[in-house]
């Protein structure tokens, strides 16, 4: 026979009230947990994808668009740049590595990225099978891309023009898969890599006007006229150049020099990520405020339930004192009941929150290629856990003080 047993028994005496309190607390907790999980994983994913990239050089326009399109592959690029001009910055002494990217084609919604093998190295990806490309029209498939499309070494596929699924297909020039990458948990897993030359070869067959426009406007490719006008080396275009600084000091000068230097734009993924997170954060804050309203409602409900039960329980409390319980023990048992109600609610909420995140993650992964999971724990959750226990204790505080102040003799005399 313990205080815990007594507290549980008291809660069990009014199962409906207790149940409603637990569910209310659970709803509030679940929404906060969901937000914490989504927020932390989102920022983690965004930072992980941009970890090794200090600066992106690309066409002028929105820096956010440039970063979204070339680092996260989540937007269309603002346009193309001359490779020759980008290479000039690659040779700058402040730059350690510079990786060219050429975007424009896709297969089954997955982007085909013309680049060098250094791009895979950037994310620490090794080959799970096969080798890197050596000639044009050879491709290496990211781990998740291989899984979703079934592409494997020696498979052949035709790239579709544009980044959506509906584009014109380069059916006459299929790619051949020569390698599959190891999973990295980054955006790389959902990409198909090939050489820059592959992209150029395909698009040299296209109309020059189209090539200029295709990054901006992926859907509008109804008419295709092929012309044999091959561009000289000097006129080669790429979408962007990913830069890694030799020293952090470069961040002070290089972006400014690039932006002042003419046709190129330099965008910092770190700056853009924080801008995006700030925007997303406003929505998150609103949702979180709403979740706290739920928690406060639950706390009020716990308070009302305990306070309301005091009248019915005044003889119990008086009798406990007659049996030897101290005032502090009566106070403690009421606090314990409040904490138990919130603990059950919190347990329910954490289960529901993590479960919902896992469900949502599964859906997002298939629909958006964003890998979120419910089976993770963020440090903020530990704080939340302790905080919510405290909420239960605070909700029980006033009823507990009333129990502490029970006038035993007067209560028994009224019986």
């Amino acid at each position: 026979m313990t205080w815990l047993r007594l507290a549980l028994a008291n809660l069990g005496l009014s199962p409906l009230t207790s149940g409603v309190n637990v569910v209310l607390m659970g709803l509030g907790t679940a929404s906060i947990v969901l937000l914490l999980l989504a927020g932390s994983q989102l920022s983690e994913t965004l930072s992980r994808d941009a970890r090794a990239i200090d600066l992106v050089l690309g066409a002028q326009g929105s820096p956010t668009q440039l970063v979204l399109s070339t680092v996260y592959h989540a937007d269309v690029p603002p346009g193309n740049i001359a490779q020759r001009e980008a290479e000039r910055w690659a040779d700058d002494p402040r730059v350690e590595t510079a990786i060219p990217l050429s975007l424009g084609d896709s297969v089954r919604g997955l982007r085909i990225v013309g680049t060098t093998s250094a791009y895979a190295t950037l994310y620490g990806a090794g080959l799970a099978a096969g080798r890197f490309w050596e000639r044009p029209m050879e491709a290496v498939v990211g781990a998740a891309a291989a899984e979703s499309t079934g592409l494997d070494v020696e498979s052949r596929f035709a790239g579709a023009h544009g980044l959506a699924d509906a584009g014109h297909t380069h059916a006459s020039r299929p790619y051949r898969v020569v390698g599959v990458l190891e999973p990295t948990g980054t955006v790389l897993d959902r990409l198909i890599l090939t050489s820059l030359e592959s992209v150029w070869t395909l698009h040299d067959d296209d109309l020059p006007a189209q090539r200029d426009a295709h990054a901006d406007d992926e859907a509008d490719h109804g008419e295709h006229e092929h012309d044999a006008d091959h561009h000289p080396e000097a006129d080669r275009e790429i979408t962007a150049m990913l830069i890694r600084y030799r020293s952090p000091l470069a961040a002070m000068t290089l972006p400014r020099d690039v932006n002042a230097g003419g046709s190129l734009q330099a965008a910092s993924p770190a700056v853009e990520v924080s801008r995006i997170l700030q925007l997303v954060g406003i929505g998150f804050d609103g949702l979180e405020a709403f979740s706290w309203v739920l928690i406060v409602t639950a706390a009020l409900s716990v308070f009302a339930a305990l306070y309301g039960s005091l009248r019915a329980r005044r003889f119990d409390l008086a009798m406990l004192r007659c049996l030897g319980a101290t005032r502090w023990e009566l106070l403690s048992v009421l606090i314990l009941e409040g904490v138990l109600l919130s603990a059950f609610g919190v347990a329910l909420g954490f289960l529901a929150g993590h479960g919902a995140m896992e469900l949502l993650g599964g859906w997002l992964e298939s629909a958006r290629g964003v890998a979120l999971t419910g089976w993770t724990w963020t440090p903020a959750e530990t704080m939340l856990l302790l905080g919510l226990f405290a909420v239960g204790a605070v909700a029980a505080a006033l009823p507990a003080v009333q129990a502490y102040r029970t006038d035993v003799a007067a209560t028994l005399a009224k019986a």
Partner: protein
Amino acid sequence: MAFAIEVTELRFAHGERTIVDIGRCQLASGQSMAVIGPSGCGKTTFLHLLAGLIRPRSGEIRILERDLSQLRGGDLDRFRGRHLGLVFQRLHLLPALTVHENVLLAQRLARVPMDPTRVEALFDRLNLTGLERHRPSMLSQGQAQRVAIARALVHGPELLMADEPTSALDDRHAEQALALLRESARAAGAALLVVTHDQRVRGHLGHELEMTTPA
């Protein structure tokens, strides 16, 4: 001679109105006594004073050779829990707990070691065997009173006090309840004090104290 109760010049008042005024009252260990008086004469208040639930305006109360005025706060609660057993007219069994848990709770609050054999023997003697898992709401009045007596005795108190244990009962049950209290107290080696307005109690206990409404 050891005394379970020693009261001298005890006065308790609500404002100007004197509720209890007792010059001297003693009960030796292991003895029994009935405090008999009309409703409103302050009997229940007297019992609450003896149990340390309220403090007297003046006078001395010694329970089991301890001066209650020397015990403060939690110490008084613990003393009450450890050494006294209380049975009220309204039994106040905790509705959330089973019969068995109600009795175990008293053992725990008395801070004596859990003793299942003692509980078992008590249930056997009070004819409660088989009711352990019942809720108080499922018991008859007689059964519930026996549970309340078991709860008051489970920790081996030296003084058992009952407030109006018979007034709601018919003659036959009143006599049974009284005999049960007397027998239980004797078996436990505890002194017994019964506070009542019920004249049927006369002659059943070793000593009697008449209480009248104070002037």
